[in-house]
């Protein structure tokens, strides 16, 4: 049911973990729905995301979307990271089964949540 790209990301996800001194942390979903996604990021003074890591409880699609989401935002300015939509995540994964699209929505929300956390901390 999953394509090769999704299975690759699921089998060997990138950027797994938690940045202890993160500048922004986003956490979305809940265990009773079967998905929790957490993204932590380092953001430099110019607003560039210099590092991102994730931890996810969920299905193969949730893990794969988390992995590509972190890859998509590293090196980007927070303003352009905020423009990333769930469709961009799906496109990077070369497609997701219809019932798994919500995983890409979680990824978009996790990015936005982490950046909002950063902005709140910096009182931006």
């Amino acid at each position: 049911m999953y394509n090769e790209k999704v299975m690759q990301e699921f089998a060997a996800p990138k950027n797994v973990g938690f940045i202890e001194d993160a500048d922004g942390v986003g956490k979305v979903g809940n265990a009773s729905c079967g998905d929790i996604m957490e993204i932590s990021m380092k953001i430099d003074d110019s607003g560039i995301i210099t590092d991102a890591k994730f931890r996810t409880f969920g299905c193969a699609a949730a893990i794969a979307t988390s992995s590509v989401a972190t890859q998509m935002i590293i090196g980007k300015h927070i303003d352009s990271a905020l423009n990333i939509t769930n469709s961009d995540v799906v496109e990077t994964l070369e497609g997701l089964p219809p019932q798994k699209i919500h995983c890409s929505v979680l990824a978009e929300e996790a990015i936005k949540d982490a950046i909002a956390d950063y902005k709140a901390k910096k009182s931006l």
Partner: protein
Amino acid sequence: MDRIYLDHSATTPVSKEVIEVMMPCFTEVFGNGSSQHFHGREASKLVDIARKQVADAIGAKVSEIYFTSGGTESDNWVVRGVAEAYKTKGNHIITSMIEHPALLKTIEELTRSHGIEVTMLPISKEGFVCIDELKKAIRPTTILITVMAANNEIGTYQDIETIGKIAHDNKILFHTDAVQAVCSMPLDVVAQNIDFLSLSAHKFYGPKGVGVLYRKNGIKLGKHITGGEQERSMRAGTHNTAGIVGLGKAIEIAVRDRDKNNKYLSELRDYFVSEIHSKIENVYFNGTKSDKRMPSVANFSFEFIEGESILLRLDLVGISVSSGSACSSGSLEPSHSLLATGLPIELAHGSLRFSFGLSNTKKQVDYVVKSLVEITDNLRELSPLFARKEGGTFNV
């Protein structure tokens, strides 16, 4: 890579003995069993033999055996046929919360289309139907009690003899879906007070696409498929001779080898269960550990991680199992059976069913356990829930 198959509750391979008796039905004995000539009579004889094999296996008469396309059809037929035949008597059906969708979805449809009312019996933590609740649920309008003999997800055996007795004491019909049970549980429709019973060949090393409905003689049931006069005009359609012959042989073998197979499978299962408990932390066994369960099934919840992820990681290393969470099958809801036992939804999401078969070995179990240790470790490293449990820095 030698693949390891641990999903025998989903389906089994057809045994060699069964294939041998099926093969001639495709070429030599290809006649239509309804034809009067030699070719037809030869096919009809083989169907008769299979009918006898099924009847003998469950303590029934040959005139009480109807061949169908499988368990789903048999379940559908009973529910729809009883609702139709007994509509003047009543409209109430009692079932349990852990039945197969073939029953639950059919009953649900009848509540909308035929004014059927349903009571779903609750389930104990170990997976047993609450007998007291059954007694309380009975109404003057109750026409059918249907409770499965063995559960397809956690393997629990229900006390069908007692449930059947309660049904009969109250002049209510009793159906049991014995699709999972027949391999391991001795069935006797008379002693166990059964009026209807469903079987499916591919669960006991027979072919797919063929099953049985047992109906006790003298009990009314609506016709299922109209057309020719096959199956006493109740279920028309040219006999699937090869499938029926395969089913007959498969059930004969299942009964013949039952004790031996039960011993082999329960030892393998027990070894697996003890290895999992000793090598993986935060893992919970679902169902009962008493002897009232199938010897082939072990259902576990792995805390902090999700079933589909474990299933697909196991698949990558050559192991086929089933996810208790139906996530992979297109529905995002976790197993209704596990939730019915009161399992927290987070744990239901993280459950897997391992169902053993005759070709599995202890060596395979060792490989599966080793793989599970690595996979659960790895997925837990990925899980924000696990980090929190270990005293991680992130606060919810």
